[in-house]
């Protein structure tokens, strides 16, 4: 395959993976207004669970499932104290949790091999009779479609409507008889489990993961996808993921194409921050607005 085509396929795979991650954050932030700044933790939990299970000789599906369950349980445990906090404190608590998970992965060498990371993570269905990268593109896209449809159902249901009501005014939702803590906890668990799916796909695509791939900047990149795409609009969030990932992949290969006098990877962080600031100032609703429900 030509280099350019390979670059495109690679970019599209990353878009699929990060779109799943961004959709999970959208459920929490865009729909429910749970200020989760620890998204990367659940992405990491999915990646490491899936990698460890498959490295131990079990199939991909089991690894994926373990990630979903472990991330879900962790999400539930975190939500018990965290969801009782006001939104700004929730942001601080979750950012700390993200770092706790990364430091755990870095230091518990008996399990994670620490900074060396995990190598040789098996690829799912590696004997498919086609180019593996192309296959993985379709494979990850299938996951994106399933997650998209699943979340669409959830958000457009009466369950999702309560989440939106909590976003708008939690006390009013309570006064109408909604046990808002239960709804928020469910949204958080669901968001965590879906982030874990993205983590599994990430680990099995790269076949190598290490703790420095799960820095807080991942969370901020995913936040930017949601803010730029449009909080509450799933298609917008996918578009946001595409835009940010395209930017990220392009700055990565830019060094090989042109000398622009600055380190492209640093430039990427500058662009990300700039984009976030510009959108929050001039178009806070993002590219696409949440769809209005009508009868």
């Amino acid at each position, binding site marked *: 395959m030509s280099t350019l085509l390979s670059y495109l396929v690679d970019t599209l795979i990353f878009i699929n993976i990060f779109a799943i991650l961004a959709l999970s954050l959208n459920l929490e932030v865009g729909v429910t207004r749970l200020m989760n700044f620890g998204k990367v933790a659940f992405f990491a939990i999915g990646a490491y669970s899936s990698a460890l299970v498959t490295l131990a000789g079990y199939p991909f599906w089991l690894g994926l499932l373990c990630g979903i369950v472990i991330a879900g349980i962790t999400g539930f445990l975190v939500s018990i104290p965290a969801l009782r906090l006001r939104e700004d404190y929730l942001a601080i608590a979750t950012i700390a949790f993200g770092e706790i998970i990364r430091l755990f992965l870095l230091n518990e060498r008996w399990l994670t091999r620490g900074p060396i990371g995990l190598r040789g993570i098996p690829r799912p269905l590696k004997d498919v009779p086609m180019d593996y990268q192309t296959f993985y593109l379709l494979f990850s896209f299938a996951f994106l479609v399933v997650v998209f449809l699943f979340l669409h159902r959830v958000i457009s249901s*009466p369950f999702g409507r309560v989440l939106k009501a909590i976003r708008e005014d939690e006390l009013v939702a309570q006064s109408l008889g*909604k046990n808002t803590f239960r709804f928020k906890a469910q949204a958080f668990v669901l968001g965590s489990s879906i982030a874990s799916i993205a983590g599994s796909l990430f680990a099995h695509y790269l076949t190598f993961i290490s703790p420095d791939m799960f820095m807080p900047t991942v969370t901020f990149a995913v936040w930017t996808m949601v803010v730029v795409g449009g909080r509450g609009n799933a298609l917008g969030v996918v578009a946001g993921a595409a835009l940010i990932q395209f930017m990220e992949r392009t700055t990565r290969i830019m060094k090989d194409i042109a000398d622009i006098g600055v380190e492209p990877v640093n430039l990427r962080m500058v662009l990300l921050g700039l984009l976030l600031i510009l959108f929050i100032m001039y178009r806070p609703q993002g590219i696409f607005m949440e769809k209005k*429900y009508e009868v």
Partner: protein
Amino acid sequence: MGILELKEVTKSFGGVVALNRVSLEVEEGEITALLGPNGSGKSTLINVVSGVYPPDSGRIFFSGKEITSLSPHEIANLGIIRTFQVPRVFKNLSVIENMLVAAREQRGESLATTLFRWRDVRAQEEENIRKALEILEFLEIEHMKNEYAGNLSGGQQKLLALGRALMAEPKLLLLDEPVAGVAPPLARKIFEKILELRSKGLSFLIIEHNVDVLMDFAGFVYVLHRGEIVAKGKPEEILESKQVLEVYFGE
């Protein structure tokens, strides 16, 4: 025995006693009004009854069942629905969506049902939409059903907040100044709607400043001053009571 009973309810914030041994009763099928100047503890009383603040002491009963210190959603599910002084509509949701949130016992609020029994969810949803449109029609804001609630006028938002409360099938409505900031003709209309609802068996506890409106619509009035009940009685008795004149116009 009233549908709602407060017995010696006390609530203070730091050193400020917002409610001092307040006892009152709301008769079933009646409109009971709570009168009092700003800062007299009226909103605190609604917040305590609806579970936002637990009382420091005293007990609250609803239909004979103790509800002291239950959480807001538990109290709402028993049939006590409150509104707020500021309408607090869900601004970024459409009017119809505001209404639908409030519907009771929605099967689609369970994730499992939503995922595996969508047809049940849809059926109940259609029923709830029909009911919501009926209430909007009753309140004469049906034409706004697809508008963002934030785009409604102040008066319309008050009506929507009332409609949303009705959608939750209350037995007792706690209304915190339902016509504050509403133009007088519309205010009167809102109270006529409230009378109509009362005739269907609903009970009301209403905070209201507008004495004219109270005289026409309330069955019983409590006057709150500095956290204490200083007078109670029929509206006409209250208007003539010396304490009330003192509370409002000084001694």
